[in-house]
C-alpha cells in the first residue's frame, strides 16, 4: 500500500494501522485541513479536497459539541453501501491530528477500525517529536521565483 508522509514520524504508525485495520484510505491532517500523511490515495490534489472536507466535518461537529456544552465527539462513523468512513482526532506532541479513514465493509468494520485507531493514536503520540523544529529561513531569491511561478501559473 502506498503511504506517503509530509511529517515522516507519522509514517510508521500509519503503515501499521493500514495493515492491522485492513483499511483502504487514510488521511492524517491538522484540524485546519493540512495534510500530514496519507495512504492509498492516487492523486495528491484529491487528498487535499478530502482533507478540507474531513477537517470541516470535525470542525463542525466539534463546534456542535461546544454549543451543546459537551466534550468533543470521540469519533464519527458513516456507513454507506460498500464503504465506511471513520473520522476521529487524537493528540500528539505536535498538536492535534485528525484521521480520516475509508474502509471496505466486507473487509473491515467500524469496530475494527476504532480498535486499531486507539493504537494509532497511541503510536502517533509516542512517535511525535516533542521539541519544536528549528526555524529555518527560506532562500533569499524566493520572491523572484514566487513571482515567476505565479506568472507561469496564470499564463502571463
Amino acid at each position, binding site marked *: 500500500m502506498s503511504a506517503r508522509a509530509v511529517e515522516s514520524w507519522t509514517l510508521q504508525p500509519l503503515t501499521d494501522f493500514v495493515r492491522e485495520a485492513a483499511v483502504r484510505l487514510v488521511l492524517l491532517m491538522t484540524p485546519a485541513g493540512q495534510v500530514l500523511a496519507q495512504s492509498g490515495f492516487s492523486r495528491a490534489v484529491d487528498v487535499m479536497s478530502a482533507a478540507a472536507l474531513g477537517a470541516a466535518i470535525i470542525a463542525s461537529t466539534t463546534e456542535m459539541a461546544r454549543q451543546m456544552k459537551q466534550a468533543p465527539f470521540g469519533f464519527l462513523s458513516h456507513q454507506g453501501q460498500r464503504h465506511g468512513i471513520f473520522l476521529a482526532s487524537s493528540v500528539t506532541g505536535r498538536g492535534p491530528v485528525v484521521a480520516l479513514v475509508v474502509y471496505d465493509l466486507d473487509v473491515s*468494520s*467500524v*469496530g475494527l477500525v*476504532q*480498535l486499531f485507531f486507539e493504537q494509532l493514536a497511541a503510536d502517533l503520540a509516542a512517535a511525535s517529536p516533542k521539541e519544536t523544529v528549528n526555524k529555518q529561513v527560506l532562500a533569499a531569491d524566493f520572491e523572484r521565483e514566487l513571482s515567476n511561478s505565479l506568472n507561469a501559473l496564470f499564463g502571463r
Partner: protein
Amino acid sequence: MTTAYSQALDRVTRVRGVRGAMLVAGDDGLVIAEQLMEGIKGPAVAALASSLATRLRRAMAAAGVGNSLFWHLQCDQGALLVVFSGSGVLVVAVAEADVNVGLVRLELLRAAEAAG
C-alpha cells in the same frame, strides 16, 4: 429491552469459567451490551470476534456447510465462544480454556433467542 439483554447475558456469565459475555453487532463489530470481568476489553473482543466471524462465515459458505451457527476458538490460555442470532447479532463469551463448552453453547443459544 436493556433488562432483557442483561438477563440473557447473566445466564451466560453464571457458567463457571466464563469471564464475560456480550452482544455484538455482527456487521460493525460494536458492543451492544456487555457483562465483563475486570481486565476484559469489550470493544476489542467485539471488533475481533465480529471480524473472525465474518471470515469464518465466508469460508464455511464456500465449503458448502451453510451458515455458521456456533463457533469456538480454543486457545491455550482461554477461549472465545460465539453464537449467531438470526438478526445479525453475535452473542459472545470469553472463557477459561477448560470451560464446559456444551453448557456455554446452550446458554449462548438461549441468550441469542432472548436478544432476537
